[in-house]
């Protein structure tokens, strides 16, 4: 497994401190997993042919690199709760004749930099990458979705959304007797449901 050049990937967001971090490597096959990050560089190679869920929590300073290799059909739901400084790079590679929907949900309380690349180079494949972001407090969030489809017989889609409680939504929910604090709690509860 080759570790990518994070300095290049995250450019201005990369901190020199990361150079001294240990690297933890894992190979995962067709399994849902949870990861609590703690001052390390995590490198996960994930081979998939079925649906999985991933939960990732960071309270310190970490880099996470997930390399997904998808054969046949696999939907991935990933929830990231960040309360520290997190750089996360997802690379999703689709094999030929594969279908994958990749959904990323980020709850950010602090500093989050994400780059997710959906790469479809092989034939007859279809993939989607959807990102949702929920922010609390004075946060710094950067989401960079990248789509690379180089085969004419394949298709790819991507989108990013920031979850916000707009004034008309709040007014409606207030009219049902729900106060602002409870509205935020309900939205959070639903957001982390994957």
């Amino acid at each position, binding site marked *: 497994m080759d570790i990518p050049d994070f300095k290049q990937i995250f450019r201005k967001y990369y901190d020199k401190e990361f150079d001294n971090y240990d690297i933890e490597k894992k190979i995962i096959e067709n399994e849902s997993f949870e990861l609590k990050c703690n001052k390390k560089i995590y490198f996960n190679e994930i081979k998939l042919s079925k649906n999985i869920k991933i939960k990732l929590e960071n309270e310190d300073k970490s880099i996470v690199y997930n390399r997904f290799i998808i054969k046949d059909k696999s939907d991935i739901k990933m929830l990231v709760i960040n309360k520290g400084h997190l750089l996360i790079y997802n690379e999703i590679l689709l094999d030929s004749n594969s279908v994958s929907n990749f959904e990323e949900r980020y709850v950010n309380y602090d500093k989050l930099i994400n780059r997710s690349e959906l790469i479809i180079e092989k034939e007859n494949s279809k993939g989607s990458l959807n990102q*949702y972001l*929920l922010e609390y407090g004075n946060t710094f969030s950067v989401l960079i979705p990248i789509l690379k489809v180089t085969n004419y017989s394949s298709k790819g889609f991507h989108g990013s959304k920031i*979850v916000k409680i*707009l004034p*008309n*939504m709040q*007014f*409606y*929910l*207030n*009219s*049902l*007797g*729900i*106060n602002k604090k*409870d509205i935020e709690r*309900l*939205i959070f*509860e*639903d*957001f982390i*449901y994957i």
Partner: protein
Amino acid sequence: MLIIENLNVYAEDKKILDNINLVVKDNEVIAIIGPNGSGKSSLARAIINDQKLKKEGKIIYNNTDITNLETEEIARLGIFYSFQEPPEIENLRLRTLLKFLLKDYDENKILELGREFNLPEDFLDRGVFYNYSGGEKRKLNLLIAILLNKDLYIFDEIDSGIDIEFQKKIKNIINELKKSGKTIMIITHNIKFLKDIDVDKIVVMKDGKIISISGKEIIDIVEKYGYSGF
């Protein structure tokens, strides 16, 4: 009982309701009709204290002055307003919302109601009002209204975008709500909709003013002559 006294309402400094005086007694069904822009929905939104509106006058509900009460507190007193155009809340599932609101959350009963209302099978898993047609939103509004079991219902254009068959169902539901002791305000510009409803009073609004309060006999007059004669 809802009492509205000398109510003036302003939106962005423009007067949109002018000296409204109205009493809605308990267990009464009152219809508010009038042409578009006459102030019907503004009156409803003033009752639930839409912060975008500035008010003068008083609104009393069951001896509590609710004129400047927070919207959620007004709701907790037992008032339900079904929005004409409810917001689409993609990131809040109806199931989560109802579980929070209902002490006796009964999923089977809610699914049964959903089927009765021809709502999509996955309506509990969808975001609240998210990706629904106008008619479906109205149906969902009604479903939420029934489940919440409030005392005063304000239905704003609940018949809009609804087929005739389902309109009959809505009328039956309103009549049943009345029988069970609820108080109901129906806002509509479709006067025909009121025909089979046990309406006690019909209030006609025009240019932000109440211009007539009468019984059901007004329906034929409005049907024949419109609002121009008022």
